């Protein structure tokens, strides 16, 4: 992503929205961050900028909550000004949803930690390598304890000995990079540990949940902009002697998608509001997990369907790279996976309804 | 002596005398530490503005239909530049003459300045019957309070039916001030003025020039309007015409002036033909591409004795000075011939040149809105068309 775009986000004070003003942030609630996410998606149908925003916001929030004073001062003084980025790196080549079985390990060595392993399918690797910044990372401290022995920590990539990046070209969100990195005896200072040792798996969900809530609004923003493009098109284009917007078939689709996208917005904002409520001690974990999972379980699909029909209305043109809406179509496809797959969302919903005894794969 | 419409609130008056300093007509005296209004008060209101104690009240009576008919004659405010009449004054006089003829009334002109008498014959030639002049040194430079107070007083005394102002910097500062003092209707930037059912019909563009509006001021007098320079046509002068001259005595206390001019900076070179007066303008916009490329337009201008203008885009890009700008936020021009090169012709530019007699447009974009108002157009690159045109014209004009 071009540096001047990151700087522009910083200029409008979008990069530290939820961070404590003590570190230069605005200290807003997450609903306000949701509004920003939705608007950024309306403006950038490829969703590259919204992804940079939502990842930086969610994982910045986690650093704000669990980071050491030293780490926070060091990280936020640069990230909020757009001088470096914040990302998330939990996925590996062989590990996605099954985080407890990941290969990356972390051990204590005197005053530092040493990390070994690899991460893959991570957003923002190129940006972190070039501009600076780091990724909130998960690794196994006590592998024998599974999810109860994981550390969450901040891992800078640029100029870090032992980090070897690789890049892959994913099929959408072109302006933000996708890639991975090998971690070979990388040493990180102890003040980069986030929260306590072995408790990382529990903290990480707070970041995922906020990111998922923002993703729901990104899907809604991109889809509603695509629908607006579609409306303008069907009011202009004629076939068989009349504007295609006059045909019932088109109108039925338009109405159905409009309702779904508005419903998605309500699910998304309710989820973010619940997240805020929990911060204030007014909502339970159950309510937050449920609301967030509900919104993200449907977001990429309802958005995809709306955008797909907008492309269909545009006929052959919709299948070309000149059509703006196809960018959104490719972008929202990533959200069935990013920050937690749709399948996991459904398992979370079911778990909340059935109780922990019914957890799948136990 | 009680003067109709003005009253001194004796309990509030402290006899400070600020009102005396502000009155242009020397119509106030202080007697026994209280202000007293004299018979020659014109109700201009200059005293009300300066009184710190709100001790002066003016209540000009609302006009009945009978009163409206007492207002006669079509006046123009003649703006001066270095003691000479600005070209727009002749445009206003021509239009006023036309309106006055329809009404069967006379044309009056008001000139405020340091020296005015020498201008009376000149303005009379364009159809003015009476010239009201105020000549004092302190009127050399425009000052809102001075000009407004004096003009308001003259209008209240002589009751014109219509007063026209130029929509220049001065006119657009003065006219609303006077209109608000008199509590009358004022219409800005009129492009059309005529009489309909005995009333002044004022036509003007609105919404950035996208729409035209016809406006009347039926219940108040005088009916006031401003018109942009280069819109009304100037009639042929009749140098045998003479006008009556009414000299109005006025005094201004410079110490009472609350706004003072410290420095005057002139940016337009005197002598250089200005855009306003050119018969031929060759204008360039964003499509010119650079400051150097304007030389191509300047070459053509030399051949046909024209002046180079610019759209806002070219001025904003720093290629041409602001004084060259044609358009809504620049100058309005109406030359005989306007050649637009590399100008898309957005409405804000059109407003500034639409009333040109002939418009030629050259643009690489066939959809450019400039072609909607052009009489003749070429879809092409000006860097090829203009030099070729220049050569052709040199050949053809030499033949003559």
């Amino acid at each position, binding site marked *: 992503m071009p540096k001047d775009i990151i700087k522009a986000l910083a200029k409008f004070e979008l990069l530290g929205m939820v961070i404590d003003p003590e570190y230069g942030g605005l200290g807003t609630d997450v609903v306000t961050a949701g509004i920003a996410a939705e608007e950024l998606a309306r403006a950038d149908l490829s969703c590259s900028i919204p992804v940079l925003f939502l990842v930086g916001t969610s994982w910045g929030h986690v650093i704000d909550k669990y980071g050491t004073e030293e780490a926070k001062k060091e990280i936020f003084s640069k990230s909020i000004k757009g001088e470096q980025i914040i990302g998330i790196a939990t996925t590996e080549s062989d590990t996605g949803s099954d985080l407890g079985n990941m290969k990356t390990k972390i051990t204590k060595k005197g005053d530092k930690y040493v990390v070994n392993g690899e991460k893959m399918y991570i957003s923002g690797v190129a940006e972190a390598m070039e501009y600076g910044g780091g990724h909130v990372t998960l690794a196994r401290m006590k592998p024998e304890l599974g999810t109860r022995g994981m550390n969450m920590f901040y891992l800078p990539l640029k100029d870090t000995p032992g980090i070897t990046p690789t890049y892959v070209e994913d099929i959408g969100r072109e302006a933000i990079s996708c890639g991975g990195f090998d971690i070979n005896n990388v040493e990180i200072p102890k003040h980069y540990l986030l929260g306590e040792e072995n408790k990382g798996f529990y903290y990480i969900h707070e970041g995922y949940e906020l990111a998922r809530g923002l993703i729901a609004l990104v899907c809604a923003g991109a889809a509603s902009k695509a629908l607006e493009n579609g409306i303008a098109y069907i009011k202009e284009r004629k076939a068989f002697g009349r504007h295609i917007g006059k045909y019932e078939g088109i109108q039925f689709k338009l109405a159905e998608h409009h309702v779904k996208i508005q419903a998605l917005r309500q699910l998304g904002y309710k989820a973010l509001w619940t997240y805020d409520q929990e911060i204030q001690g007014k909502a339970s974990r159950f309510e937050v997990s449920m609301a967030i999972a509900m919104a993200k379980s449907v977001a990429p699909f309802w958005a995809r369907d709306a955008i797909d029909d907008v492309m269909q209305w545009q006929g052959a043109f919709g299948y070309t790279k000149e059509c703006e809406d196809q960018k959104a179509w490719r972008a929202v496809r990533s959200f069935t996976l990013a920050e937690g797959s749709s399948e996991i969302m459904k398992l979370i919903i079911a778990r909340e309804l059935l109780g922990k005894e019914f957890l799948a794969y136990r | 002596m009680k003067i109709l419409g003005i009253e001194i609130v004796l309990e509030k008056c402290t006899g400070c005398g600020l009102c005396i300093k502000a009155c242009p007509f020397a119509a106030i005296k202080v007697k026994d530490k209280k202000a007293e209004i004299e018979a020659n008060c014109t109700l201009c209101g200059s005293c009300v503005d300066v009184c710190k104690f709100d001790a002066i009240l003016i209540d000009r009576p609302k006009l009945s239909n009978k009163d409206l008919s007492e207002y006669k004659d079509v006046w123009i405010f003649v703006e001066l530049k270095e003691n000479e009449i600005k070209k727009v004054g002749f445009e206003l006089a021509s239009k006023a003459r036309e309106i006055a003829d329809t009404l069967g009334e006379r044309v009056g002109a008001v000139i405020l300045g340091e020296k005015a008498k020498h201008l009376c014959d000149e303005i009379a030639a364009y159809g003015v019957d009476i010239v009201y002049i105020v000549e004092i040194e302190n009127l050399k430079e425009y000052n809102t309070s001075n000009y407004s107070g004096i003009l308001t007083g003259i209008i209240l005394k002589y009751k014109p039916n219509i007063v026209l102002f130029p929509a220049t910097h001065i006119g657009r500062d003065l006219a609303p001030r006077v209109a608000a003092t008199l509590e009358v209707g004022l219409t800005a930037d009129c492009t059309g003025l005529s009489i309909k059912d005995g009333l002044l019909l004022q036509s003007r563009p609105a919404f950035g020039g996208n*729409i035209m509006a016809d406006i009347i001021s039926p219940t108040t007098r005088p009916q006031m309007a401003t018109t942009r320079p280069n819109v009304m046509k100037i009639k042929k002068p009749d140098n045998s015409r003479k006008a009556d001259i009414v000299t109005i005595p006025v005094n201004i206390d410079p110490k009472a002036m609350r706004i003072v001019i*410290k420095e005057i900076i002139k940016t337009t070179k005197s002598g250089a033909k200005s855009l306003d007066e050119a018969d031929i303008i060759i204008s360039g916009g964003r499509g010119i591409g650079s400051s150097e490329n304007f030389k191509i337009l300047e070459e053509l201008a030399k051949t046909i004795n024209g002046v180079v203008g610019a759209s806002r885009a070219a001025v904003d890009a720093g290629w041409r000075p602001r004084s060259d700008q044609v358009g809504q936020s620049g100058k309005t021009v109406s030359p005989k011939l306007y050649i637009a090169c590399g100008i898309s012709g957005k409405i804000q530019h059109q407003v500034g040149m*639409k009333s040109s007699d002939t418009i030629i447009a050259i643009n690489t974009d066939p959809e450019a809105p400039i072609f909607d108002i052009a009489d003749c157009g070429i879809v092409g690159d000006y860097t090829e068309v203009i030099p*070729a045109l220049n050569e052709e014209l040199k050949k053809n004009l030499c033949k003559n």
Partner: protein
Amino acid sequence: MKFIVCIKQVPDTTEVKVDPKTHTLIREGVPSILNPYDQFAVEECVRIREEIGEGSISVITMGPPQARSALMRCLAHGADEAILISDKAFAGSDTWATAYTLSHAIKKIGSFDMVFCGQQAIDGDTAQVGPEIAQQLGIPQITYVEKVSLDKTHKLTIHKQTDGGDQILEAKLPILLALLPPSSFQPEHPPMSSILKAKRKPFNIWDANILGGDKSKFGLDGSFTQVIKTYTPPSRGECEMIEDDPKEAAKKLSKILCKNEALAKR
């Protein structure tokens, strides 16, 4: 030091189009914006206040309920409080009635030192309301103001644009200034923190009852000018397109121009 800024919410006239069939304005989908001249006025007022280190800024507008967003924008730019003067009774106001309503509101706010406004609104383009407010408040005015300097002793220096150049003026307070942004002025969006702060600033709505004043002077009844007709400007007729390569086109154009009166005069 008390500053008052008068603003207007206007349709973005660069986006307005005319319906080719009915010859009326198409107003749907045209975004409403803070009049750019007024945005410059607000920004300049805030800058002046920062320079002298004191003063409170009230921003007011007469408009429909939607004008709220223009006022919020001004609060985000740094004004301290906003007042929306809104009532059906104000509908149909010409510049006189508008000036009456606004000056009445200013008198109701109380004593003030400076009134800032934009030179003109991009929909009406009259530039009349500023001077008319000044007259009704009984204060001097300076229009076409490009630059304002105020020092801590409240000495005011103004850089004003005239037809032939510029003038530097000194003026006493109270005064009304009508500001003209330089052609380089690009209305910028305020940052997030200012927008969030704006939500917590005082915002009041005054209808005709709260405003008080002579009701006969508001709205259509109080207006001295009446619009009796609106229409699209007449078209100039067809454009004769010369279709040819540049050299041939130039030849044809040259023939047309040589017949033109302007060149014949040469």
